């Protein structure tokens, strides 16, 4: 089964490209201390706002810190936020979606109303409010992004569950005496995985963007910890004299989110129910 996916995946150039980039980024994040030329927090006021040179490949920021190193360490933040936030959203969304789709009736109505209510809030402002209320740090950011992301997934999972539930093998599983819990999580869940994976991958891109925006506004990761977003905060103040401070972190965000989008789109093709035909 997975062999079929793998074969198809290899043929999809865009997905491969996306995956490759993400893989590289993950490696970079993992070995950041090894490949970063400088300590990202090491200040060198004498050499502040220097353009890209042989010594500082991407230049320095307003406190003389090496931009390349800061961007490399920033990768850690972005990837971590992406995974954790989406992870939270997936867990909540999948469980609620399965419960809703499987049992229907009152429980379904209740969960769906909850989803509707949450979706009414403009997500970003909701996040802003919550963070402003709590303390801005990376953990709060991750949790809040996750908590605003689950409703979309719930709807998705519920829809898939509704259609899978009617398939005969679910009835056969019940006829065998399997408990509802087993039927839902062991039999139905693998069959609704495909859209979840796609939504999750695309969601990571979104989460990274949100975190960057929050950090940019000062409500996310706090300096001195580097995040692509908070580098841009300084970048905007010095944009006329130090373009590199805005360009490079911006590019990093662009490339990363693009990679996740490509991978997500690619997965969508690969995991298409066409799998039956092969």
């Amino acid at each position: 089964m997975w062999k079929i996916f793998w074969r198809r995946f290899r043929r999809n150039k865009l997905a491969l490209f996306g995956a490759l980039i993400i893989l590289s980024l993950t490696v970079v994040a993992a070995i950041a201390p090894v490949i970063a030329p400088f300590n990202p927090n090491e200040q060198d006021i004498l050499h502040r706002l220097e353009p890209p040179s042989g010594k500082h490949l991407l230049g320095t920021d307003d406190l003389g810190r090496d931009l390349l190193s800061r961007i490399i360490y920033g990768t850690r933040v972005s990837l971590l936020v992406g995974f954790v936030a989406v992870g939270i959203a997936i867990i909540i969304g999948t469980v609620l979606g399965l419960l809703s789709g499987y049992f229907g009736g009152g429980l379904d109505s209740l969960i769906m109303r909850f989803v509707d209510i949450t979706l009414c809030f403009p997500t970003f402002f909701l996040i802003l409010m919550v963070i402003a209320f709590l303390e801005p740090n990376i953990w709060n950011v991750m949790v809040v992004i996750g908590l605003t992301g689950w409703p979309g997934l719930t709807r998705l999972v519920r829809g898939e569950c509704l259609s899978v539930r009617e398939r005969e093998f679910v009835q056969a599983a019940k006829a065998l005496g399997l408990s509802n819990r087993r039927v839902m999580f062991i039999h139905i869940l693998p069959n609704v995985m495909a859209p979840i994976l796609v939504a999750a991958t695309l969601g990571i891109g979104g989460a990274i963007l949100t975190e960057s925006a929050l950090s940019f506004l000062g409500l996310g990761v706090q300096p001195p910890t580097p995040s692509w977003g908070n580098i841009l905060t300084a970048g905007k103040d010095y944009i006329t004299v130090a373009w590199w401070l805005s360009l490079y972190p911006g590019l990093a965000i662009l490339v990363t989110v693009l990679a996740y989008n490509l991978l997500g789109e690619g997965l969508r093709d690969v995991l298409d129910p066409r799998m039956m035909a092969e």
Partner: protein
Amino acid sequence: MERILEVRNLSVEFYKGGKIVPALRNVSITLNENEVLGIVGESGCGKSTLALSILKLISEREGKVVSGEVLFKGEELLSLSKEKLLQVRGGRISIIFQDPFTSLNPVFRVGTQIAESLSLHRKENLPAQQLEKEIIELLQLVKMPKPKDTMLSYPHQLSGGMQQRVMIAIALSPNPEILIADEPTTALDVTIQKEILGLLTELQKKLGLSVVLITHDFGIVAETCQRISVMYAGNIVEEASTSEVFHNPLHPYTRGLLESLPSREESPDFSQGEKRRLKAISGQVPDPSNLPSGCKFHPRCPIVIEQCKPEEPRLREVIRNHWARCIRAG
């Protein structure tokens, strides 16, 4: 012979598009130990509903059991607690469905699915090697050509006949006492049909199973069943031993069904320039939400009389052990 399964006056209703539709109306069947009972009827007569209702598999959303009871060796099934019901399902009464392909989970290997059934109904946790051995034994029991290879295959990699064998293996793995087979061969081609039916018959004798075989094909029941119940529009219209049903059908519907079977002696012999039309029962199966008054078959019946219209006839024992729901039978 002991009665191992008794359905008494079972009535089931479905909710369809806001309306209440009676799917089963006062249905009673009896399955004796070690016997194969055939339930025959056209599509829509309620035979599959009957099968599902026995194991209380009609979901609350779709419909409900209005009245009646299902007795398994004297124990009433419909009022069992959820826990006990889950033990009965599969463990003591198993059911196999019409399309084996859709009855298997497409994302798991066949061996895994058999293993699940095996582990579920055993009290102890079986070690992997033991499990594998039993799976292969089961596959050999259902005459699967290459058990080891099949075990590792996914459902879509197997042919229809093999998939149905897997279904049978899964159904028999917990050693049930009753097997309900809902149109087990309808989705298969004729040569495979014969093999699967032969397998079912052999297994029935070997394992001492009691089987309820549901089908619309008279040819199948003739070969495999000892008793037959004929269903029409949600209830039983005739019940007798197989030979009685074939040699002396008492209900006009049964007679109509038997007469509409193409027979070899009467098949058109073109070399002699003779052609014969197939006999069919006139009219159509009634819409369950709009059943006719009185005897449900009367609008299509060749021997209908006035008394058929007001009141629905009871199922009466016209000859010994031969029941028919017709006032003109006998």
